[in-house]
């Protein structure tokens, strides 16, 4: 199993952070997922051996954290918050709009593999609601029109890049 040099550098650094190897597990899983797209059997086996745990122990941890997934997702995971602050400012309407526009339901993936859709809990953007995270990029103060533009931009970028893009360091406006 081959990860990027950046992943290896981070993993090596993390092992120096803690008195136990397993403490590096949660951030390592997320970094691995960012590269592969999901936590495949192969990834789980690799990471389990690196932190001296059984695969079962690693799966047990994975199932607890909402960001970790063992199933493949689209290139862009559109996470729509519908928790109270977003609910009051149209989060549910935004979710319905995304369902219609992408033609998929909650936790679904478009046929071309470009987009996944997920209803999520509070993402910490309450004062800028309604808000959506696409992979790690925040999009705030949204309307259905703005949402369309955001999705258009990702669609264009996705067709141009053509590989599993992990995240944008600077969230798009």
């Amino acid at each position, binding site marked *: 199993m081959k990860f990027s040099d950046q992943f290896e550098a981070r993993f090596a650094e993390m092992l120096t*952070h*803690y*008195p*136990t190897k*397993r*403490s*590096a*597990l*949660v*951030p390592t*899983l*997320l970094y691995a997922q960012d590269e592969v797209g999901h936590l495949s059997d192969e990834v789980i086996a690799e990471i389990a051996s690196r*932190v001296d745990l059984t695969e079962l122990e690693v799966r*047990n*941890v994975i199932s*607890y*954290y*909402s*960001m*970790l997934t063992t199933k493949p997702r689209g290139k862009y995971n559109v996470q729509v918050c*519908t*928790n*109270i*602050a977003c*609910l*009051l*400012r149209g989060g*549910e309407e935004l*979710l*319905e709009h995304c369902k219609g526009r992408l033609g998929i339901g*909650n936790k679904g993936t478009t046929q071309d593999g470009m987009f996944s859709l997920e*209803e999520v*809990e*509070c*993402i*910490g*953007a*309450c*004062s*800028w*609601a309604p808000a959506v*995270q696409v992979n*790690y*990029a*925040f999009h*705030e*103060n949204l309307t259905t029109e703005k949402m369309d533009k955001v999705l258009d931009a990702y669609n264009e970028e996705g067709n141009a890049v053509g590989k599993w893009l992990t*995240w944008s*360091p*600077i*969230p798009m406006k």
Partner: protein
Amino acid sequence: MADLVSHPDEVRVVSRRFGQGAADIDRYLQLDGYKAVQKALAMQPDAIVNLVKDSGLRGRGGAGFNTGMKWSFVPKQSAKPKYILCNGDESEPGTCKDRLIFEHDPHAVIEGVVIAGIATGAHAGYIYVRGEYRYLLEIMQKAIKDAYARGFLGKNIFGSGYDFEVYWHGGAGAYEVGEESALMESLEGKRGIPRIRPPFPAVVGLWGGPTVINNAETLASVPHILLGGAEWFAKLGPPKNGGTRLFCLSGHLNRPGVYELPMGYNLKKMIYNVGGGIPNGRTLKAVVPGGSSCPLLTAGEIDVSMDFDSMMKAGSMLGSGGVVVVDDSTCMVKFALRIMKFYRHESCGWCIPCREGTDWLDKILVRFHSGGGLRKDIDNIQYLSENMLGRTFCPLGDAAAMPTISIVKKFRKEFEDHLDGKPCPFEKAGAAELAMA
């Protein structure tokens, strides 16, 4: 990047460096950065603890425990290493303040961690940033690296002979991990299931060592107390409620945003003056005063001082600073349902009253809102919630119960308006889609 706002009533302490590029270490140094930690290095540890105690700084995560007092519980002698753990797993619905601190002033958090370490005799600290805040984790990673490069962290910090290491750590999505003992479990690479107490983390915490766990805003306040003094900080707020708070105004407001106001600022003024009042000619119905775990206040209950003790007296909590304003177009049954859906999703499943209670309540509320409710359900919702209170392993069960009880008590009529197969009076569709989503 989240937009910054301002209001003339603001008192900027923690947000003093927001929007000034202080994530850059040179800029931070120009803005009095890393002076407080040098001052702390010249002080006796007990003197730092007493200073923070006297400042009246109380935990900004929501519990409101006196920070200096918390530090004083750490034993002086310990066979195992002591740790400082910064809780940056901000996920209480309505709360988005730590995000701004990490973005605009990451070094203040680092400085707070080091000062807490000097005060308690710890030599290592961890800054836990929630998984969704990846861009903030990147900012924090750079800030830590820069601080090491200058000799502010690591061996012999500032040439003082004191060693202190600071490490970053990222989460992967879990509200429950914001609870201090679950946070330690998560940092140790496990499911975030809370630990039984006693022993308390101050005695047996991370990897069995004494551990201080403080919210990011709490730690970011500490350097200001060192420089400005305990008396100055205490006087910013009412007695025993020192300092300011980052209030996250959201919901039905004309000017939502994160504002730093003195402790004890009047809630009504906060909604109408600072937040600009309710838009679209609507009127106020309810307020969530400090994140979704707090009992709600009605429009008639908002003439209160926003400090820990006054809010307790008003029958609610100051909580995490998340003020969610609800107007009269909102269905409170649906609001209660959305809150319960959240807690059902986030319950770790470890203890039965929380796991079963949140699930059962969610199901009743879904059925109730879609028109299938029975009159006895109203009392059952309250009864079930009251039976979770104080009977769960960690406060998540209480957090689910408290807002629910308050909504049933204060908005009972809205529940009655959903009876006898009547559709929700506030919307066309009903909750069927919400439930299926």
